[in-house]
């Protein structure tokens, strides 16, 4: 007797068939919870913060006056705040560029030259700092960069402390010691975010077929030309993806400027201060729009360069 496909009789089977027939319900069940998280918890809390920027802080009692107003937005566009934004964007850009310079050779070596075991060890090495606490790493760098710290000690032993003093006397980036200067902040930022730059570049480089490089050499290209014409264009998506990490993370960071540097405010620090110190949540919320706007522009640019193709 032929076995026909009859309706299943088990409960689970019936449920499965029901869901198969009702596509909308199936989607709702599958996406419901994640969407609730994303839109409700994440998007909702972000939105409730940004809505605060249309309120105003009562000057004495420190409570928020919830009548919609634009006075907080007017307080946002002062030269002091624009300086803060400019300072943060400059630092983020510098960190991103230098991270690319450091990460690219490293990623290239991991992809092209490392044997399988060495490759695994190197990727592990790049990821290892991420296993320890962020604060521990930042405070350790404060000690390393200090005037009495190990870098100073080492350079003195080598007789190079004159060079260090000359660097610290540079007008903008120098300071009394490495730990109290933009240069020190820059070093710590690059260190902290480097893993986030190495890995996307390495992923992108993995996808460059070896045959392309050989073909390029066969056609008479020198290594420099091969790099410029073949490798770099193919690696750009990875570089853009990594730069999104380093740029946005530097833009919003408020812990490193607190511990390292000369207390000059960065965007994250101003938002933190305005909310925590001044209780001025409306101004903090208005200021939060600044990195959002900057990142929106940056992401559009990155999308043009193909950063999201690597996903």
């Amino acid at each position: 007797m032929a076995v026909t496909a009859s309706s299943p009789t088990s409960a689970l089977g019936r449920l499965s068939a029901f869901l198969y027939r009702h596509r909308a319900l199936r989607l709702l069940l599958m996406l419901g919870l994640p969407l609730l998280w994303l839109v409700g918890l994440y998007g909702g809390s972000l939105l409730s913060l940004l809505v605060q920027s249309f309120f105003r802080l009562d000057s004495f009692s420190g409570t928020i006056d919830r009548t919609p107003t634009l006075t907080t937005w007017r307080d946002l566009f002062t030269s002091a705040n624009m300086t803060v934004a400019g300072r943060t964007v400059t630092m983020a850009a510098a960190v991103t560029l230098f991270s690319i310079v450091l990460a690219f050779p490293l990623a290239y070596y991991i992809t092209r030259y490392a044997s399988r075991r060495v490759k695994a060890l190197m990727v592990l090495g790049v990821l290892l700092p991420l296993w320890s606490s962020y604060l521990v790493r930042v405070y350790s760098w404060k000690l390393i960069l200090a005037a009495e710290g190990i870098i100073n000690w080492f350079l003195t032993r080598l007789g190079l402390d004159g060079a260090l003093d000359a660097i610290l006397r540079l007008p903008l980036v120098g300071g009394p010691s490495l730990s109290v200067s933009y240069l020190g902040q820059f070093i710590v930022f690059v260190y902290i975010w480097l893993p986030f730059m190495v890995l996307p570049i390495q992923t992108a480089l993995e996808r460059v077929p070896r045959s392309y490089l050989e073909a390029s050499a066969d056609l008479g290209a020198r290594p420099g030309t091969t790099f410029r014409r073949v490798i770099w264009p193919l690696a750009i998506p990875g570089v853009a993806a990594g730069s999104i990490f380093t740029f946005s993370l530097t833009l919003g960071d408020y812990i490193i400027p607190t511990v390292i540097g000369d207390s000059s405010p960065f965007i994250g620090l101003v938002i933190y201060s305005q909310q925590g110190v001044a209780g001025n949540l409306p101004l903090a919320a208005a200021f939060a729009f600044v990195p959002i706007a900057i990142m929106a522009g940056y992401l559009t640019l990155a999308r043009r360069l193909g950063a999201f193709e690597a996903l």
Partner: protein
Amino acid sequence: MKWRGIVLLAVIALITVACGTGADSGDDGGATLPTEIGEGEGQVNIVAWAGYIEEGAVDPNYDWVTQFETDTGCQVNVKTAGTSDEMVALMTGSSEFDLVTASGDASNRLISGGTVQEINTDLIEGWSTVDERLQNAPWHTVGGKHYGVPYQWGANVLMYNTEVFGATPPDSWSVVFAEQTLPDGETNKGRVQAYDGPIYVADAALFMGVQNPYALNDDQYKAALDLLREQRKLVGRYWHDAFIQIDDFTNEGVAASSSWPFQVNILQAGGAPIASVVPKEGATGWADTTMMHSKAPHPNCAYEWLNHSISAKLQGDLASWFGSVPAVPSSCQGNDLLTAEGCTINGLENFDKIKFWQTPTEDCSGAGGTCVPYYRWVTDYLAVIGGR
């Protein structure tokens, strides 16, 4: 496509409405004063300055929490804050904390915002032992009602490195305000620090000789800001966290800074070449009061702690640890950790010389005239730190 947009807009509108009319702080609900301390709730959450509430973690001799926890069954949870503004933000932002050790520049804000509740002083056994100058102090007594129990008081001292100053210790705040060559032959540029709380504008005003540094008219305020902008070029880093400052004095070669006796004590205990002084211009200071949140989740344990906070042993131990002066003068005697001269060393006689922190208000604290209110201090001081 149309549906997605509509659903998204609906969600956004819903959330905006929900938080626009969201939970408001401050509504007291017309609570009446408790007449007795009931059963403990098992824990008490306190917002405090670093070093104010110790349970022997740093030095086992300094522990005034463990015995309290055993006696009352109330677990003490401490949240440290670096500035008064942080404390105000923590207390107004949630009703998670029961108590706060508020300085005078936070206490009035908390009272007028309805964030703290009136204390029934009949329930505080040792109330009569509290220093009479503090019992009805304006920063915690408003309209005859007491809003807290005094805890400690002290000055913002000038802490300096004795190796830099050698035989000529500093006697003026000019070492942190004016560029000069220090006794060790090097400039003070990059080797001094300043407090990163906006209340520090009062220290600049004090250095300029203003009588009440918390009631500044526009001219005095502008002059103070100019002084602070000059100071910005000398300051290496603005200090916010006591322990980061301790690290800076140890590892960064900082020569002088305003500080609390707490950091001085810890550095000296570690053998560092540090000393402190109250300069000839005087000093700003703080007189802290433990206040209770108007919606404290553990009111009975809070009252237990309030009673414990003015017990003689705690007051003496804390004064010895922090370098402050107890709110209960009798605790100066008979404490081994504090020793007989402890209170004098910590500045017992300086009470009248100290300009205690208070919140600058537009009405010059009731003295008449127009003064610059605190929210402008905040914005302008943050700008000064930013180099503007």
